[in-house]
């Protein structure tokens, strides 16, 4: 069987955006540089995005090294309570949790309670790193779930149209009609109490699944729209003439053209997933004890304002920083992959 006819000129593997963008910008690049290399070049020039991408990687790395910090530096676990102990800070001996229940603030000394303690005497810095692992894990799993399911669903709806599209679109409408937070609450509560198969109780997969599920329509609809447009183009007909099956066409013709859309969505969904996890946990429908995450830390901390505000501030700043990094990097990624975005006001 002959190889399918695909457009041969580089750059037309994407939708016509790249060519039009370059022509209007007056740039004259030699043929032969693939769209991904072009995007990478543009991304490299965007210092701010790269910086924040680096910040995000740093945060991930720090969280992955949580056990290292816990064992070798702080010598204390994330759940080790120490209400009655004392610690020597800069020569003075202080109670970790004072007699009226106020925990110590940041000591800025690596070997113990670097960022202070919470009301049960646990080390905030260690909990921050371990909680970060959970938050990031939930965010990553949720994003993966959303992207995979939404791509499949959008692809099927856009390609087969007709009844398949009708049914899928109506289902997406129903999910989409629920406000995200309420849907998250409903599913989160139901799954935490009753569960479906392995998705039950206090496992981290429950919030991950809930969040991933909630965001499916947001991604599936644009993908469906794009597939619908692509469906009309000649190279699909040509592929059918060649004898390719539907699934082969979807896999080798349409999916590569969706890749830039998919790549752009990933940081967006990841950022929102991390935020939604924090929100759901604060409401009680997300991560359940004894698991810890940034959401639980902020939530617990809010109940002890004003005595120990660092319990709210520290995980909160970490959360904002992480989400901000993902957002800025995602923005830069979108700019790099979509040349039309670079068009400025010019006269």
């Amino acid at each position, binding site marked *: 069987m002959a190889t399918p006819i695909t457009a041969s000129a580089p750059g037309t593997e994407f939708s016509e955006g790249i060519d039009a963008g370059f022509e209007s910008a007056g740039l004259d690049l030699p043929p032969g540089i693939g769209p991904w290399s072009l995007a990478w070049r543009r991304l490299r020039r965007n210092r701010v995005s790269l910086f924040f991408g680096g910040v995000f990687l740093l945060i991930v790395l720090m969280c992955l090294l949580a056990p290292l910090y816990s064992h070798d530096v702080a010598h204390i676990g994330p759940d080790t309570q120490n209400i009655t102990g004392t610690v020597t800070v800069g020569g003075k001996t202080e109670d970790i949790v004072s007699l009226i229940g106020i925990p110590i603030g940041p000591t800025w000394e690596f070997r113990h309670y670097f960022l202070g303690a919470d009301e049960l005497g646990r080390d905030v810095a260690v909990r921050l790193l371990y909680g970060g692992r959970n938050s990031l894990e939930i965010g990553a799993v949720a994003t993966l779930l959303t992207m995979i399911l939404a791509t499949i669903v959008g692809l099927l709806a856009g390609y087969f149209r007709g009844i398949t599209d009708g049914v899928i679109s109506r289902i997406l409408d129903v999910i989409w009609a629920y406000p995200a937070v309420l849907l998250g609450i409903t599913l989160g509560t139901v799954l935490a*109490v009753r569960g479906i198969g392995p998705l039950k109780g206090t496992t981290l997969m429950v919030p991950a699944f809930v969040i991933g599920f909630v965001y499916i329509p947001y991604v599936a609809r644009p993908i469906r729209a794009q597939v619908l447009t692509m469906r009309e183009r000649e190279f699909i007909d040509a592929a059918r003439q060649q004898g390719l099956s539907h699934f082969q066409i979807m896999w080798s013709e349409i999916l590569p053209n969706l890749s830039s859309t998919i790549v752009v969505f990933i940081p967006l969904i990841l950022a929102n997933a991390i935020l939604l996890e924090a929100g759901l946990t604060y*409401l009680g429908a997300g991560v359940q004890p004894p698991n810890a995450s940034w959401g639980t830390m902020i939530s617990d901390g809010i109940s002890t304002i004003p005595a120990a505000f660092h319990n709210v501030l520290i995980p*909160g700043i970490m959360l904002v920083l992480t989400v901000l990094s993902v957002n800025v990097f995602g923005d830069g990624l979108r700019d790099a992959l979509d040349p039309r975005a670079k068009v400025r006001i010019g006269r």
Partner: protein
Amino acid sequence: MTRFVVRRVLVMIVLLFVISAITFLLFVVALPNGSPAGLIAGRLATPAEVHLINIRYGFDKPLYVQYFNTMKNIFSGQAYSYQSGFNVLNEIRAGMPATLSLALGAGFIWLVTSIAVGTLAAVKAGKYADRVLTVLAMIGVSMPPFFLGAVLIYYVGYKWSIIPIGGYVPWTQNPVQWFVHMLAPWFTLSVLFIGFYSRVLRSTILDTINEDYVRTAHAKGLSDRQVLLRHILRNSLLPIISLFGLDLAQVIGGGAILTESVYNLHGVGQLARDSIGRLDIITLMAIVILTALAVVLIGAIVDIVYALLDPRIRLGS
């Protein structure tokens, strides 16, 4: 046009039905033993008591009968919470003023601010002001509302004592205090949306700037401001308006939950949060259903208005 409206309304009705049915099913499934009888009877209930409760509340009837009864109760104001015994609709009504004050006030603020910020950022695209606004917008989008609320309460409310530390004062009781108490919640809720909307408006404006009719307008001799107001903004605002309608509906129903809880406003959102903690199924279900209904309703209205404003929509679909 009529056909469009009729079709949209039909879709809406079906959607409402499906949403309420699914919500009901979800909550019924969530209950251990398939009915709240265990919850009502208490810990030391005998099977006989549970059975009696089942009969009295109608839990032994088939699901669809239960569904109709529940819906009837919720909409006629007869639904009573299993836990607290309060009338659910009364509770929701009690919380509405706070929620509406928050949502509508914040909605107005964020709409006006987003338009101003987005337009400014677009006009000064690429320059310093634009970059600063973009950074601020990005930070706004990355902040969980309850964290921002906590920070504001602690620093501005507690340490500097400029604003009151949460709580809601009804407008009928004291308009000035109502306003003062709502300032921080309004700001907190708006920040997220301002960040998002201003960016969307900015990119829409930048796209519109290159259209031919804008060039024609300049060629005709219109000043920059006239072109901006009469042509660019009019077209760029369309997606914003439709997004705004939907988001406002979502905020009224659920998005305000986080802000309300942090500021202790005792609105519908906080009621929902408390219901989760108590596993108060009926209240939670009622709130979810009513909210989703509101969202679908407003969504349909927004679609129709959008079609009124943009002839391409009603002719093309």
